[in-house]
């Protein structure tokens, strides 16, 4: 018989959520200040050379489609603005966390980010996730709770994987059964700890269960993540080749995505694949 937890007990007794690296936390605080100067953000990123180098690599990646090479953080901030640069510095940090996880997890997360970006840039923005970069971060992070569960509860996660395969069950359902808590709840708590916007933390929380948020805007973020997730799993870009994806009709209704839009969205998603793969190589 497994010991099961509720989310608070799990975080008190078993799991220590990782902190955001100091520089990135500082950049997030700066960007949230409406008086923040461009030069302050540039200085903060430049003060951490490894982060600056990784951020510049992303800035120059084909995925972000800049026509000119950017050689300095100062130039990048002027060209792209502080919010985009913040998201890229954040993406570089999350890539660092993910590159040690199983390859399938990194692939699934990066392509979910790309799918979210396609949804947002194809006429489905949300007040909480307005830009392609924000959407990418949201999709990238949606399953981060799995990394944490895997680190702190490895034996239980093996049981979860076995149950998923045996019963052809989605991972979050098996996690609830074996651990008592699923990756979406853990990921949402991490997003809260990192002081990400409520739309992102609630969106992560409810990407498998819309009832986890009472705010329609946040539920819409969760619904979009759910569809990006579904697209990736159906396309075989899943953590586990036996992964099962289920999307409730309520999710489709909430996003207003119709069958007629899907071929266009799918083409854009496929078109982004080579640049996403290149982006992932920059994390190594």
């Amino acid at each position, binding site marked *: 018989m497994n010991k099961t937890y509720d989310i608070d007990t799990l975080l008190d007794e078993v799991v220590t959520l990782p902190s955001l690296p100091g520089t990135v936390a500082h950049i997030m605080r700066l960007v949230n200040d409406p008086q923040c100067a461009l030069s302050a953000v540039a200085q903060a990123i430049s003060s951490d050379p490894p982060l600056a180098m990784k951020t510049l690599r992303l800035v120059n990646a084909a995925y972000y489609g800049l026509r000119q090479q950017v050689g300095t953080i100062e130039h990048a901030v002027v060209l792209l603005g502080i919010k985009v640069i913040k998201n890229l510095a954040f993406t570089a940090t999350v890539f660092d966390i993910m590159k040690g996880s199983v390859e399938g997890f990194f692939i699934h997360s990066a392509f979910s980010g790309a799918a979210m970006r396609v949804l947002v840039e194809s006429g489905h923005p949300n007040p909480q996730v307005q830009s392609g970069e924000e959407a990418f971060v949201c999709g990238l992070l949606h399953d981060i709770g799995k990394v944490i569960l895997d680190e702190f509860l490895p034996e239980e996660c093996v049981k979860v994987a076995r149950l998923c395969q045996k019963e052809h069950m989605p991972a979050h359902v098996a996690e609830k059964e074996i651990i008592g808590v699923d990756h979406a709840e853990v990921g949402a708590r991490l997003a809260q700890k990192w002081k990400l916007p409520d739309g992102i933390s609630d969106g992560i929380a409810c990407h498998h269960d819309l009832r986890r948020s009472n705010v329609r805007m946040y539920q819409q973020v969760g619904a979009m993540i759910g569809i990006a997730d579904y697209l990736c799993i159906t396309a*075989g870009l899943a953590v586990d080749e036996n992964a099962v994806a289920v999307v409730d009709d309520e999710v489709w209704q909430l996003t207003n*995505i119709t*069958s007629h839009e899907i071929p266009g969205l799918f083409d854009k998603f496929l078109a982004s694949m080579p640049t996403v793969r290149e982006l992932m190589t920059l994390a190594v």
Partner: protein
Amino acid sequence: MLDNRQANIVLVGARQNPKGAIVVLPGEAGGAVQTLPLSMALNLIHPAHVIEILCMQERAFGGSGLPKPPDIGES
């Protein structure tokens, strides 16, 4: 299908000469079957199923290299 009919999806063509997905609908009251290109049948198909069909089509015909699902063998 959204109207509760059962339909089959057939991929027509080969990787070098792809023709696309065709929706095969049963004939009413034992009549002849009806075939529609996917693009003409979108209003009859749930968006989740459209994604499944497009993924299947991409695996069969496309060049993006989508991974093959474990339960599909070579043919």
